[in-house]
């Protein structure tokens, strides 16, 4: 049985090799924090980290994941919601419906790693995940707050 290293644990699964990582996470590994939004890498709700790089998992087939690559999902971002992005999100009450927020948080965490002192323009250029409730301004404020907390 094939395996993936997810949130530091090696996990077995049963899926065809062209199955998107998103659906292996959700349906085989029970990690439903990663969301299905569009299936075409347009919305970012399915964002996870692969070796620290923010990746839209709906367009990543499991056969393209190389042995040893480490996948981190929202469930594994921190053990206790202590990542600066999660702390800032809580402080500012960022989520509304919350459905896109796993992806937003994963995208923001990777972004903050690359841009530890982000400007508004950096955020605008790089935070491309969609939110239908329109939490963008709080996401922006949350990233800046997280930068202070980091």
């Amino acid at each position, binding site marked *: 049985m094939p395996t993936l290293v997810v949130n530091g644990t090696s996990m077995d699964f049963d899926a065809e090799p062209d199955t998107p990582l998103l659906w292996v996470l959700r349906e085989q590994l029970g990690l439903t924090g990663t*969301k299905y939004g569009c299936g075409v890498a347009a919305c970012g709700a399915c964002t996870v980290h692969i070796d620290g790089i923010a990746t839209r998992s709906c367009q990543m087939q499991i056969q393209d994941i190389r042995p040893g690559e480490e996948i981190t999902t929202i469930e594994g971002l921190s053990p206790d919601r202590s990542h600066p992005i999660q702390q800032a999100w809580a402080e500012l*009450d960022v989520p509304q419906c919350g*459905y896109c927020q796993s992806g937003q948080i994963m995208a923001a965490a990777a972004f903050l790693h690359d841009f530890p002192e982000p400007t508004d323009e950096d955020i605008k250029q790089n935070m491309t*995940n969609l939110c239908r409730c*329109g939490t963008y301004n709080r996401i922006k404020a949350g990233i800046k707050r997280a930068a202070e907390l980091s």
Partner: protein
Amino acid sequence: MTHRFTLSRRSFLAGTAAAGGLSLGFSLPALAQDAPTGDIPEMNAWVVINPDNTVVVRVAKIEMGQGTLTGLAQLVAEELECDWDNVTWSYPTPGENVARSRVWGSFGTFGSQGIRTSHQMVREGGAAARMMLVQAAANRWGVDAGTLSVSKGVITGPGGETLTYGEVAADAANLEVPTEVALKDPADWTIAGSRVLRLDTTGKLDGSQKYAIDLKVDGMMLAAIKQTPVMGGKIASIDADAVMGMPGVQRVVQISDEAVVVVADTWWRAKTALDALPIEWDLGENASFGMADLEAMLDEGLSATEAFVGNQSGDVAAAFESAAQVLEADYHYPWQHHATMEPMNAMALVTDDSCEVWVPTQNAETDLAVAAETTGLEIPQCEIHRINLGGGFGRRASAADYTVVALKVAMEMKGTPVKVIWSREEDTTHGTYHPTTKARMRGALDADGNLTALHMRISGQSIFAGLMPFALQNGMDPLTFQGLQADGPEGQLGYTVPNLLVDHAMRNPPVRPGFWRGVNNNQNAFYLESFMDELADAAGKDPLEFRRGLMQNHPKHLAVLDKVAEGIGWDTPAPEGRFRGLCQHMGYGSYVAAAAEVSVDDRGALTIHKIVAATDCGHVVNPQQVEAQIEGSFAYGLSAGLLSQVTMEEGRVQEENFDTYPIVSMWEMPAVESHLIPSGGFWGGVGEPTIFVATPAVMNAVYRATGQRIRELPLSKHDLTPQ
């Protein structure tokens, strides 16, 4: 204890009509049972207090991002005088509501009604519970209840002795529920009216909140659905054998003339097989319908002689005859899709004598009625599990099409829970779309530039006609005139025009309409507030001054408009290269206005530098959540204004996903400055109203910046490059 009754689907759907803000009657027979459920005795329907002092507030409305859950809990906690840090919440089920004579009222969560239609009952629930708890303490101490004081869930006796709510809750639950309770003056609120954080955030930070699409129950199967690509089309044939051998596939079920599902052990396998399933369609008479047909249909209505009258005063024809100047312009508002981030889905488990549904729904009582009707079971045999929504926006308010589908599949596989998930493409192409209309705006000005007459002819689609024709009134859809009516607490025109006619030539294309956040206020505000600027220009007047001249009888409308004018600095020149627009509208009981400051560069690219918004919703229960709704409304409203539209060709919706149905992203999102100016004395909604003013404020500013009057949305259809 129970007795049989017939619950018609119609009575539920009539309740659903309130989505548009109407007060249609909602009579529902009740079971002869009024007993609470659960291990811990409740204070009343709204409040349960555990021995550890935690307070469970029962919430009848459903949370879909709008913050109603927290706001309603604040109102209960305010009157209960409990410690906010001890507050948690739970959802009663529709089955419980019916069994208890609908003690929680309507579960319907739409029309920005969550708080404004239930504040009285939830506050009374909190106050009654407090009185019972105090009485229980008084009884224990053998003193008069009037000698006790209470703060943060601790009752203090005349001698300074204390008891916590948790310590007296069991006694209190046995006391009679007081029938007369006094509520606090909102001026004395401490929990309500404050910027407390939401109660439901934690699970949204670590992926632990389960949406319906995430639920997993033992033995569950997954289904992917394909529905007729053309409204009215039918399945001619399906070759199920072609996919039965594919991995994980369990069944191919044709659930109606119009839809087929593939059931598999995972959704991805179901979808993969569905994509491979050979299906022949008989597309029917709408298979040639396209935008040219729509244009012709709507254009004909613009000048049709017959139309339903929504608001009328004076003698419009005579006023146009004697006008010094007549201005006319046609506007168009396209179809929009809700595009909830969580695609449509529902799970059902049906047996010979029971039915359970897990569904993200804005009105679970409708789903309960649908469950009984679809399965043929009795209401008490059915139950709906309410799950927080990954967005609703009206898509999950009335049609319950997803619930019907899940039930039909589950009826074919009795004893097996089946969850049906729509692909994004299937979701986008089978929506209940924001109705499309055109408007012919005609205004008459006298020699001094005063507006003497206004005729607003709306031509196009009716939501009621398409979704719930029984709600029509002698053929008329009164909801079409949202925000344009002469009076009423729900919404009223903010201008006094001496000669006025607002009428509607109903033209219904073969596309299913629905309630889309803001509903008909969206296009009505766009039409009227854009044309007000056109009239102001024709009159040679400043847009704010021109409006003010018509608003002296409408002080609340005027107050929000003045507020945004002040906030944007209307009286001072905009910075070099920037231009401003403003507008106002009233709907869902609230007065809203917006002002925008924009620039357009030499490549025609629009930048919205700043938005100033103002809301008078009477009372504000949680300022930071009202601000969140206002900000979010610009993302939702400007998606329609700037970027998105649904179009039809050959009877098919052309947009399928976010690549062809773009919505506002971080890139377009403007900075928003919100002003809350609650004037008290009424309760207005906040989930939708700001949507109305998002687009016209920006389009009025775009006109100042470019000289282009945008009369057809979205803006992306237009080239703003300077000529």
